[in-house]
């Protein structure tokens, strides 16, 4: 069965692009437009992996990670969360890792092929 990916991304164009790539690479993809929607979809959907943007309205990526860690059931699933953001300072990376993000990539510095390779690696680990 196809592995499920949850994309949490507020930019419609970018979301569409990497949704298309992941689908073409054989994954089933759900998209949330902010952290709050992301949590809803996590609870109802049980994805195998989350690709998370950081700067989003309503609930940003850091708040999403905090809420995830605070929810015992969700945290217990230990779903890998890959942060894919265009913020990229050391502080952002450190903060994300402290909040249990599995990995961190800067969108502008990462190709779609690299993202697919990385997602495959983490999803296969389980």
């Amino acid at each position, binding site marked *: 069965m196809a592995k499920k990916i949850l994309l949490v991304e507020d*930019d419609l*164009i*970018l979301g569409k*692009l*990497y949704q*298309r*790539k992941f689908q*073409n690479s054989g994954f089933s993809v759900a998209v949330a437009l902010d952290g709050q929607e992301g949590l809803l979809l996590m609870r109802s959907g049980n994805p195998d992996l989350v690709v998370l943007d950081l*700067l989003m309205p309503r609930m940003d990526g850091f708040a999403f990670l905090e809420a995830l860690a605070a929810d015992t059931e969700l945290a217990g699933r230990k779903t890998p969360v890959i942060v894919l*953001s*265009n*913020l*990229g*300072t*050391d*502080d952002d*990376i450190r903060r994300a890792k402290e909040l249990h993000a599995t990995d961190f990539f*800067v*969108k*502008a*510095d990462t*190709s*779609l*092929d*690299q993202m697919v390779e990385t997602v495959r690696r983490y999803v296969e680990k389980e």
Partner: protein
Amino acid sequence: MNTSNKITVIMGSAAVVAILLAGIVLRELAVPSEAQLMDARALIGLFALFAVFGIATVTSFLRRAIAQNKKLSEAQEALKKFQLAVERSSEHIVITDLDGRIIYANAAAAATTGYSDAELLGATPAVWGKQMNDDFYRALWKTIKSEKREFFGEMVNRRKNGELYRVEAHIYPLLDPQGNAMFFVGIERDVTERKRLEETRSNFISIASHQLRTPLSAMRWIAELLASGDAGTLTDQQGDLVKDLHRSALRLGALVRGLLNIVRIESAELAVRLEPVDPAAVCAAAIEDQLPRARKKGITISCRGSAPVFSTDPVILREIVRNFLDNALNYTDPGGRITLELEEKEGTVIVAVRDTGMGIPIAQQQMIFTKFFRADNAAHRTVDGSGLGLYIARSLAELLGGKVWFTSEEGSGSAFFAAFPPAAASAQRRKDLLASN
């Protein structure tokens, strides 16, 4: 009354008494006899001697008193000058006794803390302090009291109205000739506004670069999807156009990344976080990042040699190596070789990136580490780099207390080196570098 004054009083009194007695004696004598005249003259002589002595003493006393007075008023003038200077200083200045009780607070201290002079005198700096954790204050006291050294640090304080503010503090003991602390002086500079502006600027840079990168990512990924056939098969012409579009997007991305790095380095915002780092692991990670690009260009990258674990910032080290590898890939033709070499010499860790690329003409070698510089033999090449990589590599290496250099031969290749001396030496170099900025 001191001794000389006592003597003066005694002599003066003796002289007055002598003159009075002489006067009385002379008045009593109606017609003195020869013998009486002799006695009287002797007495007068003696009295006169006392009188002269007395007057001389009085005069010297007066002169000394006047000189002392002059010295005192000069000293008072000087003291007033310094008092005014301290009182009117725009920096908060406070003097405390050994128990930290305030014996003097200037006007700026009162203005900054919000407390009046009366409220400050006799109180301790805890009145506007106590916002940091206990360890902070313990270390502060240890430095100034037990170690009798100066303390420099940043801390958060609290004004009388409850408002929190940030200061740069310089606190030091005043020692007597025996080396015992007599007082403590505390000078604080309110840096709240400056920090706020720095944070705003830093946020602006962060957000500006984020905003630049978002459409950039879109362009890059659209080009990738088109090129990979994910959106249908392209004609040859379309394929070529898309390839150029992709490369342009990558160049723009490299430029934004480079500019962001430079702004951060030059505004000293880059925090260096030291930890034990295995250079082989960092190099392996940096190589892996570049493998896709190297493979596409038909260039092999390998690593050889070894160096021990050393104290440095792994993220910054990786960025330096990445910049060297980027540069090597830019100027090496397909079929070329890039070798990453690790070496240790007397505690200094050296990372070298050697390539079989076009090399740098001797006449242009001086400029290699400057921003946007491209040597003449490279100028015609369409290169994916930003032209900032080597400048950034050098700045980052210096931030870690290291240095960079290169060797090159036009037509054969180049080798770029980054050396990091042992911890103590690099800490000093970093301090010197920051001080010179």
